[in-house]
């Protein structure tokens, strides 16, 4: 990598850090704009409460302090990578997030790779067989999956594969109480992963397929492709070396977007399949007004988005050397 590239990446990282800080401050106020506070939610859940109880909770959480002071405490802790303590579980936010991180990354990572692989492949096939039945089939299937609501698809998959066929488990990440180890445990987790990963991946598979197909068809009409064919190149070599590589840019952009959602983008899937990931943590924290936890998840999610935007830009120049990185 050239000095210039490194400088560029360094510059982007510094800008990213500033963006993250601004987002954190913004989130801090945004969350507090919602009605209710964590003390009220907890008191409400307790089914009985009085002013003393609320006061105790607010003191314990530091919510009795003035808002600017709370912000100062939060931000100064954050820059030291301390995200505070969750109100409900009384655990460090960072530990709780890290505890859930592997489950989410496994699910979203699997869905990401799966959709990218199948989607691009289907798109290529559809473009190659343009206006033949394989093209129509792929286009229609992609359209259906693109248009179907995720939670409905998830429920139907659970009903069909778990209740009706009894092939796959309908909830959780592994068989509880089975105490499996090694390879058996791996297989067990994979069996649990199939339904949620497939459901989560279907939407983006459809998007990638449509995107790749359209982009390929457009590129095929370009002059340099005609030149390549005229040179006597084999059709496969033309497709993969010339057409696909040029057609991939919009796909990379989309993949960057999807990758940015690796942390927080699986709320629905995690909820339906009781997958113990971060999306659910965030969702529950929102309803419980668990400010620290919510801000923690937001912070890590936004860090991921910033990071993957940068990675996407770097990948652009790998895919297309004509693009240069510069400030």
């Amino acid at each position, binding site marked *: 990598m050239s000095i210039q590239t490194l400088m560029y990446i360094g510059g982007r990282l510094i800008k990213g850090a500033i963006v993250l800080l601004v987002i954190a401050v913004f989130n801090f106020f945004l969350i507090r704009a919602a009605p209710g506070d964590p003390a009220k939610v907890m008191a409400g859940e307790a089914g009985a409460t*009085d002013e003393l109880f609320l006061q105790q909770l607010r003191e314990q959480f530091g919510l009795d302090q003035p808002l600017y002071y709370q912000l100062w405490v939060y931000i100064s802790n954050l820059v030291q990578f301390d995200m505070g303590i969750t109100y409900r579980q009384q655990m460090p936010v960072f530990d709780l997030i890290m505890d859930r991180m592997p489950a989410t990354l496994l699910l979203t990572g699997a869905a990401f790779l799966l959709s990218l692989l199948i989607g691009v492949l289907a798109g290529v096939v559809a473009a190659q067989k343009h206006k033949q039945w394989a093209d129509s089939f792929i286009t229609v299937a992609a359209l259906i999956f693109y248009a179907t609501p995720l939670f409905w698809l998830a429920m139907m998959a659970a009903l069909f594969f778990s209740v009706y066929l009894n092939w796959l488990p309908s*909830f959780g990440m592994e068989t509880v109480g089975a105490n499996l180890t090694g390879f058996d445990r791996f297989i067990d987790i994979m069996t649990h992963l199939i339904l949620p990963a497939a459901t989560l991946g279907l939407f983006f598979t459809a998007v990638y397929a449509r995107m790749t197909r359209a982009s390929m068809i457009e590129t095929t009409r370009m002059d340099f492709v005609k030149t390549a064919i005229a040179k006597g190149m084999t059709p496969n070599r033309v497709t993969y070396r010339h057409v696909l590589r040029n057609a991939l840019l919009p796909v990379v952009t989309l993949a960057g977007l999807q990758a940015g959602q690796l942390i927080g983008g699986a709320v629905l899937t995690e*909820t339906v399949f009781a997958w113990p990931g971060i999306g659910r943590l965030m969702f529950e924290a929102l309803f419980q007004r668990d400010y620290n936890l919510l801000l923690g998840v937001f912070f890590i999610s936004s860090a991921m988005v910033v990071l993957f935007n940068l990675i996407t830009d770097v990948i652009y120049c790998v895919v297309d050397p004509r693009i240069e990185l510069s400030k």
Partner: protein
Amino acid sequence: MKKIFMGALVACVPLITPIYAAEEGGTINVVVQPEPPSLMIGMYSNATTQQVGGNIFEGLMRYDQDLNPHPLLATSWESSDDGKTWTFHLKEGVTWHDGQPFTSADVVFSIDKLLRETNARLRTSLAHVESIEATDDYTVVFQLKESFGPFIRLFEVGTTPMLPKHIYEGTDYKTNPANHHPIGTGPFKFAEWQKGSYIHLEKNENYHVQGLPHLDDVYWHVIPDAASRAVAFETGKIDVLPGGSVENFDVPRLTELDNTCVTTDGWEFFSPHAWLWLNNRQGPTADVRFRQAVMYAMDREFAKDVLWNGYGKVANSPVGSKTKFYDADLPAYEYNPDKAKQLLKAMGYNGEPVRILPMPYGETWQRWTEVIKQNLEEVGINAKIESTDVAGWNQKVSDWDYDISFTYLYQYGDPALGVARNYISSNIAKGSPWNNAEGYSNAEIDQWFDAAATAFPDEKRQELYSKIQNKLVEDVPVAWLMELEFPTIYNCKVQNLIDSGIGINDAFGTAWIKQ
């Protein structure tokens, strides 16, 4: 002369003696929804904290489905003739899960120190208690300021769990590490909590009741989506769906499955009472004729049959029919839209809009709100639904920013514990959605409730509570909807699942699995 109460002849006999000899071993899989914030039952009184924690911790007594007390950590108790001195004799040889002995010092510490600080509901009742003293290792004496009728029903595990003094004394209760690894005396011990997945409890081999528990393991599964919980039960991975854990419209489908049992037992102690808060301070709801009109306008039998699958009972009193001192002879508000229209006309209701706040607890409450809205519109009330989430609901009700709002509350067996709090004027205070949030204020009612709590004996209490109920039914401070019954759906192989008035909130101590 002292009266001596002995629950059962032998202290360890379960409330309902099983007909078959129980089989030993096995695992039970139960749904827990929502995931509790903690299992520390002494500091968190969330419904699911109590469900899971009720296996780990125990109270001094248990209560059967007629709300009668039975021995648990206390083997017997007696009261003085004036009902002011109560002496509890504790069971000997009970140990905490860490092996330390359970003694009277734990009882005094739990009630007088820890729970007095952390449990708002118990704190109110403890105002009637002058002193709590341990006279020896296994005797505790409560000196009351005056006779307090509901005293005998204070010792259920969710209200007054026994907590280990040797772990909590002198520490900051809220941050004590034992909150993450609770130590109790119950039939099951805390084993593991995979946050977001499951809570594992294992058999307490040294449980103080010989031969119990029968089960080896209890797994509580966290499944956040109601439809997925139903699917999990259908696939056989879940044995028990506690009341309220699936949407009501899924109940008929699930109960028709093979090998599936259903029961509405185990809610008697709580008797969940649903009503509409009617803001007595402002707007049309401040007029008693409007509030009565609401009662006549509602087709509550329809809601019961359609939304609640026929489970439960239309409520005609602030006191539940399973709660002590319920008066069965009260005048009832039948479904009568014409009468409602007359009342509205008499008060000169001008179509001023009223907001209805649904309870954000799932689909049933949403639909119920729509039914009520339609009922009200049919008699000419201009009703609007205003939806929000749990935090927003808490905020609006506790800040009195509503016209009509759904709610339901537990009664805890006695009007002094679970009913008075919603109608006495000393309980009008912002900041809680569970007190007198409607703002009803009536000096007579205040005085009667006050007198009824400390009247002695029970006949005098009944007289006062009948007067109270008649007056409240006339004034309609809130519009009572139903005494709810949440069906517990379970695999029929599970035996003796519910054997007390608090149902699933009690331990699975006597439950067993038929192979």
